[in-house]
């Protein structure tokens, strides 16, 4: 036990997380554009350029924007460590958007120079994100499991960026001489389990008990989950570096996928199961539409391991596409959408009203965003997830395009929600 003395540096200005959050609908519109333009061609196989474009519109344009924005806000609030050079975040944001545009353009048939430009933009963006955030997390006075999970996530982001940029050079006239399938597997593992999964798990440990008054998982459970996650991130890297594996079923890329199993169990089995249990045991069972997102996202999370096994073992490429769709849009983006409906009103309340509490009457945080608006966003988001699953199964253009249209509606719903809350005075 100790009495702690702390830095009083303020959280970053609202404009920093808000700028990242406001770009989330643009990522969704990019994904919708790809589906509207290419129809089912983007859903045939994950290795086609259109599918890669769709995947990265979701992972970078939607998840990346939300997660980086949240990290800027949460690092000082949760870890007690101000992020140095916060204004660099604006450069990171602009570079990330520009890089994503170039990346998608190239994969949709644009010139090779677009990929070269996007590699430069991504290098600037991720350096400007990882270095200050990494420094803040390493020097944080609080080192609880949430902070440790955030460290794993940021470290994973750094590694996936390096791997991703080297592989992306193949679309800019370069040559990737190593085992591409193996490094794609490592890139996927670190991106989906380390970066996305690590951050979702770590942030949920803070956000779920704080906003919904659920029981806590306890230090021992959290440490086990972190240990499993780390094991499942390090083992595939070792497979890739040492090049172990034999031809046939246990090829290096399959071995790397199997080596990620401890992390997959932590992120897509134990964490969703425990969190769903905690939510059902919450103390104050007040109706809250933002919880629908958590519940739907966590249930999608529980489906990922069986679908991943099918994708690994069965020849039908639709399993691989379904894996990616359910993972990015069904699990991670659903949870992120739900978090936005809680975090953004909290940020606006904190930045605009908290200083006046006790001195004058201020609106409550809940009054900044109605349940009705959250429910509309949820219905649209869930419809797009389900419609996408049906489109992957039937492989018809009109279903893929209809999914694209629902994505457009979801994007406008999020944009309208963000603008509504951010304009509260």
């Amino acid at each position: 036990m100790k009495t702690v003395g702390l830095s009083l540096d303020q959280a970053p200005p609202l404009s920093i997380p808000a700028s990242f959050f406001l770009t989330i609908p643009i990522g969704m519109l990019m994904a919708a554009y790809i589906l509207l333009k290419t129809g089912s061609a983007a859903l045939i196989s994950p290795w086609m350029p259109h599918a890669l474009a769709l995947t990265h519109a979701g992972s970078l344009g939607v998840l990346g924007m939300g997660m980086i924005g949240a990290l800027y806000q949460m690092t000082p609030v949760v870890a007690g460590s101000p992020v140095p050079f916060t204004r660099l975040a604006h450069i990171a944001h602009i570079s990330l958007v520009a890089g994503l545009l170039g990346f998608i353009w190239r994969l949709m048939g644009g010139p090779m120079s677009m990929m070269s430009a996007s590699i430069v933009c991504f290098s600037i963006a991720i350096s400007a994100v990882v270095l200050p955030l990494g420094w803040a997390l390493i020097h944080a006075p609080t080192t609880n499991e949430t902070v440790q999970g955030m460290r794993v996530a940021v470290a994973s982001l750094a590694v996936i960026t390096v791997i991703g940029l080297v592989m992306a050079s193949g679309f800019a006239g370069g040559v990737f001489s190593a085992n591409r399938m193996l490094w794609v597997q490592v890139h996927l593992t670190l991106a989906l389990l380390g970066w996305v999964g690590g951050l979702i798990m770590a942030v949920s440990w803070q956000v779920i008990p704080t906003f919904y008054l659920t029981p806590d998982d306890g230090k021992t459970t959290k440490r086990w989950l972190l240990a499993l996650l780390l094991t499942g991130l390090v083992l595939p890297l070792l497979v890739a570096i040492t090049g172990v594996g034999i031809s046939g079923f246990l090829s290096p890329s399959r071995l790397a996928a199997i080596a990620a199993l401890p992390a997959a169990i932590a992120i897509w089995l134990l964490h969703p199961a425990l969190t769903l249990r905690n939510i059902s045991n919450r103390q104050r069972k007040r109706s809250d539409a933002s919880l629908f997102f958590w519940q739907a996202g966590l249930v999608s999370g529980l489906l990922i391991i069986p679908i991943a096994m099918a994708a690994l073992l069965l020849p039908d490429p639709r399993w691989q596409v379904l894996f990616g769709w359910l993972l990015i849009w069904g699990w991670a983006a659903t949870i992120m959408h739900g978090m936005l409906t809680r975090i953004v009103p909290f940020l606006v309340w904190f930045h605009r009203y908290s200083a006046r509490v006790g001195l004058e009457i201020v609106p409550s945080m809940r009054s900044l965003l109605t349940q009705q608006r959250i429910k509309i966003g949820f219905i649209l988001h869930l419809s797009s997830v389900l419609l996408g699953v049906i489109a992957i199964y039937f492989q018809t253009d009109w279903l893929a395009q209809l999914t694209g249209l629902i994505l457009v509606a979801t994007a406008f719903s999020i944009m309208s929600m963000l603008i509504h809350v951010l304009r509260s005075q």
Partner: protein
Amino acid sequence: MDKLISDVFSLPGKNIPEIIDLCNLEAPEPMEKILLAGAVLGPDDAYLARLPHIPYPLLPHLETRGLAWQLHEEKDGSVLILIRRRS
């Protein structure tokens, strides 16, 4: 508990305030409760509350309102915060 609190926060035994448990409130209600209590705190009063974790965003507000604060982190991660008006 009173002895622990008086030792941790260097409070004379008779001046130990009741601990207000704010762990069962959704964010940002604990911050609202503390700021409301701080607004009416007299020069010799003290406000003691238990929170689920260190309230980093609250601390600058306390400073700007001329309130002194002390934190004590418990083994379970919860935190006791003592607030007094700065003399």
